[in-house]
């Protein structure tokens, strides 16, 4: 179906389907029919999901506080559906997966939009742009907000790497504005489980964005630096090194120094799987998983398949601590 035809189709449907009620399991059934190649299943699916998509879209457009979007809600939903159709063929399983994917796509649309606006504001030939050329503070404000959105997107992508469901919960809760109860319904989980996962995801994101701020893609760093005063490559390198070192210390100190404890344990075992380590250190499995991946990103650990081992850098760091306190950890 062409985009324009799809838009018309959605607009027409929206007039008639506002009060369309879903029979339990119907969305899942339509998704499975769509899986099997029945394109008419999509026509039957859209009215069933439209209200929820609209609610998600509304929450997203109002909630993300990015002031300059010019996306109308219907166009936004249509774009979401187009991307759903044109994206990689997924093995649809249930409504939770569908709304999770939809919220994710909506976030991506906004991110693309923010990126495009940032690029327009800075201009393609803005390498020498200086403070005095930024005449309107709102330009900088909007660009800054776009950068915040991009930073959040990247933090969520990192979260998704080790826990896709928590990332999807943030998509629905923060971007989509769904309540805990609504998310529990979408994921067919208990209220308390969603609440616990939301709390964890929020704490994780807070740490990423506030206490360990913006790990934006370094390839875009020059573009960001062009907002306001710029920095030299040497300054940026020193800032990045200092940030990376602070990040490492913060990781070591997380959860009563659990990060350091894991390094010490890894040194004594030379190589170990995550599950062995979890039973070995008596820590929450999610915390161990998160810390191990972080320590690997920071060059302290090496991950080969399921096996983790200490790197030379990690070994030297432990030696340095031991020398400083005049005692061995073991």
């Amino acid at each position, binding site marked *: 179906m062409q985009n324009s035809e799809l838009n018309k189709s959605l607009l027409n449907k929206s007039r008639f389907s506002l009060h369309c009620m879903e029979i339990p399991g119907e969305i899942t059934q339509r998704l499975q029919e769509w899986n099997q190649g029945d394109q008419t299943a999509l026509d039957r699916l859209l009215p069933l999901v439209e209200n929820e998509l609209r609610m998600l879209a509304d929450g997203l457009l109002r909630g993300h506080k990015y002031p300059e979007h010019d996306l109308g809600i219907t166009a936004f939903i249509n774009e979401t559906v187009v991307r759903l159709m044109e994206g990689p063929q997924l093995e649809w399983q249930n409504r939770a997966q569908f709304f999770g994917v939809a919220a994710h796509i909506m976030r991506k649309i906004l991110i693309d939009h923010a990126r495009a606006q940032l690029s327009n504001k800075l201009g393609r030939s803005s390498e020498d742009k200086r*403070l005095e050329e*930024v005449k309107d*503070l*709102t330009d*900088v*404000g909007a660009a*800054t907000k776009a*950068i915040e959105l991009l*930073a959040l997107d990247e933090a969520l992508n990192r979260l998704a790497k080790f826990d896709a469901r928590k990332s999807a919960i943030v998509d629905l809760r923060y971007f989509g504005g769904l309540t805990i109860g609504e998310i529990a319904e979408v994921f067919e989980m208990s209220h308390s489980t969603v609440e616990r996962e939301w709390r964890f995801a929020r704490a994780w994101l807070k740490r990423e964005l506030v206490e*360990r*701020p*913006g790990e*934006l893609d370094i390839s875009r*760093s020059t573009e*960001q*630096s062009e*907002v*306001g*005063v*710029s*920095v*030299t490559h*040497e*300054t*940026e390198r*020193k*800032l*990045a*090194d*200092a*940030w990376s*070192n*602070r990040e*490492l*210390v*913060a990781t*070591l*100190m997380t959860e*009563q*120094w659990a990060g*350091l*404890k894991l390094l*010490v344990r890894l040194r004594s075992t030379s190589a170990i799987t995550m599950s062995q380590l979890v039973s070995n250190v008596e820590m929450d499995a999610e915390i161990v998983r998160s810390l191990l991946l972080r320590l690997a990103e920071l060059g302290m650990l090496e991950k080969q398949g399921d096996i983790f081992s200490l790197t030379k850098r990690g070994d*030297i*760091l432990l030696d*340095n*601590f031991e020398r*400083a*306190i005049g*005692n061995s*950890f073991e």
Partner: protein
Amino acid sequence: MSFDERIEEIISVSEAMKLNVLIWGPGKTASEQYAKRQKIRQKIKDVFVNADVRFSEDLMNTIPGGSDGLTLPEQELLHLAACDICFVLDVSKGAGEEIAHFVNSGFGHKLVILTHEKYKDAPSFPVALRKYGNQLFFNDQEYERCYLVERIVSRVRFLAVGKLGHLFM
């Protein structure tokens, strides 16, 4: 000894470390902000007992070999070069521009700029500072309560522990 006891040792040694900390910001004429600087200084000294925590104005004309002929920014640059970390209380519009030129001085990574969130969109500082956590924002509530001071102490702790591991030389 247990792992927890080793951690206690790391904490003790890091809190006894000799650190040079600068706190830049409004002077005595801005009594409330000056009081905040004093509170920050006191809190750092309470935790890090051997830290030398100075205000920029305390160090004027104290450059070894003489400060004659050195402008105020030149003296401040030398202070920045000598310190381990420099907190800047950026609480008024335009104040940032006075120190923004230190960012590319070779010591910009030592600056931690604490900016009121109402100036969040002002372009005084490069986004790179924010990106790497060298510009932090606070609101009125955080300023009035201990939260801001705690963040500063936490930042000094990261530095001290990192120095133990030879991460910050």
